[in-house]
């Protein structure tokens, strides 16, 4: 009797240990999100916070029409590229095209333009109202720390009649891997050779001064909370959080607003598709008089071969087709027809 009691307890302990080990083994052995393959009804994605508002409109609508559940983690373009490279998600989303380093690591990934939007400069200065005018070189000077107060003569000369206070400027930038950072620094690199040589364009540039925040929502929050702050956010966040937006001078010398009109003008001016499938819209030529200079496409990054090829193709076709209808309310103009055609060709090459 004693022996069985003793053995019983030891066996209980062993079972408890076994439970622990089984849990461990199950975790290591589980095939995670890429399971199910052809019959799965779930598509997991991660990436850009710029396109996240649009995707959140697609999720319920696509579920209704196709019965597929879309899960999207808005972790930033950098995180999205990372996740799809490791194949921990089914699709990634990035506003920055893959660098050659990333393209190699991703092992034949396709980048498919599926949304058209813009990055907008926002600021929060007590006493200064909306739509302050800035030029590219002045913006570069602010973010590299040469211009430190709002009443600097370079800003004042662009905005006669605006009463600018002497508040200290706090530049706010993205501390995570961000497509908006790429667009912003690409623009600054295009208009300021000084910026290009000192910082360059990247999803995670080494900003010389200022404060970092995570995701578009973090930048919006930081700008709202700090008097004298200036930052850059995706276009949807301006209206959603009632932020002040700055007007940038484009190559033609005009100050177009980052509306669907200004973004479409930029898309119409740049029609060449680069060999890697990207279409950079930053700083369009002076012939585009009304083009907003910091427009960008957002790309879906998908592997060329995927067990969920069928679902991916259906979803992407929806995204560049009916899905575009949700765009204008969020500030996204519809994709130009040529780009839709291009995306369709790329989508067709996805196989299992």
């Amino acid at each position: 009797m004693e022996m069985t009691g003793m053995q019983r307890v030891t066996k209980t302990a062993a079972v408890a240990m076994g439970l622990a080990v089984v849990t461990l083994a199950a975790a290591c052995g589980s095939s995670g999100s890429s399971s199910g393959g052809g019959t799965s009804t779930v598509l997991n994605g991660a990436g850009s916070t710029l396109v996240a508002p649009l995707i959140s409109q697609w999720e319920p609508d696509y579920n209704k029409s196709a019965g597929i559940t879309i899960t999207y983690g808005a972790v930033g373009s950098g995180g999205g590229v990372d996740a799809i490279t490791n194949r921990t998600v089914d699709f990634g989303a990035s506003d920055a095209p893959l660098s050659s380093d990333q393209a190699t690591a991703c092992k034949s990934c396709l980048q498919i333009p599926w949304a058209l939007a813009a990055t907008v400069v926002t600021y929060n200065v007590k006493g200064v109202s909306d739509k302050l005018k800035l030029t590219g070189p002045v913006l570069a000077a602010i973010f590299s720390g040469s211009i430190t107060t709002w009443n600097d003569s370079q800003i004042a000369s662009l905005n006669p009649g605006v009463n600018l206070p002497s508040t200290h400027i706090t530049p706010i930038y993205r501390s995570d891997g961000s497509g908006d950072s790429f667009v912003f620094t690409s623009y600054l690199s295009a208009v300021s050779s000084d910026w290009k040589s000192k910082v360059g364009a990247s999803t995670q540039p080494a900003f010389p001064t200022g404060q970092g925040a995570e995701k578009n929502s973090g930048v919006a929050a930081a700008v709202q909370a700090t008097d004298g702050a200036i930052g850059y956010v995706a276009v949807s966040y301006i209206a959603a959080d009632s932020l002040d937006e700055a007007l940038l001078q484009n190559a033609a010398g005009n100050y177009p607003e980052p509306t669907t009109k200004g973004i479409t003008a930029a898309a119409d001016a740049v029609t060449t598709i680069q060999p890697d499938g990207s279409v950079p819209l930053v700083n369009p030529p002076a012939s585009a008089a009304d083009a907003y200079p910091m427009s960008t496409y957002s790309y879906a990054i998908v592997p060329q071969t995927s067990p969920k090829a069928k679902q991916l193709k259906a979803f992407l076709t929806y995204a560049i087709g009916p899905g575009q209808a949700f765009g204008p309310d969020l500030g996204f103009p519809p994709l130009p027809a040529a780009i839709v055609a291009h995306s369709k060709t790329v989508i067709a090459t996805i196989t299992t």
Partner: protein
Amino acid sequence: MTTTNLDPSSIPLPTRRRPRFGETGLRALTAATALLLVAIMALLVYETTRQAWPSIQEFGLGFVTSDQWNVVTGQFGALNFIIGTLLTSVVALVIAVPMAIAIGLFLSELAPRVLRTPVGMMVELLAAIPSVVLGLWGILVMGPFLAEHVEPWLSDHLGFIPLFSGYPSSQGVLPACVVLSIMVVPIVASISRELFLSVPSELKQGAMALGATRWEMVRSVMLPYVSGGLVASTMLGFGRAVGEAIAVTQVIGGANAISRSLFPPGDTMASRIAAQYAGTATSLQRSSLAYLAVLLLIISLITNVAAQLISGRLQRRLGGEA
């Protein structure tokens, strides 16, 4: 009545019993968990080093002295974050340790007995606050408060000291120091209290009998007696401060450069990992972040082992004297 049924040779002596299943079973099972512990720790070191290896190969020890962190040029170095880590942790210790020792004294000697348990519990509850909650409070309450009231005052009155120069900012090194000191105080305070309680009463009474005031007794008898333990507890507090990622990344403002002032944003090793690891632009950046993690591991190992050795030596000394 001399002989009973008991025949000595018939009594079974438990000399060489075969071990029953339960005995070896439990022993083996528990020994297995010890091996599991060792395996986990070895795997931890291996995996982190493996992830860091490309960066270690690329930069070697120069990583520790380089202040570059540039994805575009592919140059990464830990110097700014090492300085940030040391700055925030040391300032946090400067704020927290004297306060914590005073609390330990209060709880062991000075407080009325009825207050000791409740106050002691409240100090330990500080340790139980999740770091993300402290960070939330830091972003939305403490940071703005510092920027609006404390930093302007410091800048006006002590602005000649580089530490307090510059523009007030609600996200910066100073709020990070404050949250870290809130985390360090309970650790050092509870250990201090134990240490003070362990001072033999003969020593204390002897000093009082010689005419010392209570404070003089504390200063001349208790503090020297526990000084080794206090050093150990400070090291544990330091380890805690160095390793904190979440609350720090929420309030420190993730900047690339390091400044001499406490006001502007900065960054620490743990905070940079938390901010950038999830979405790196290049694989070299990812392994550089893992390299930061390796450095963190080394620092935490050294401070932890040193603290244990110091307190182990102290215990032996106390055991010898007792």
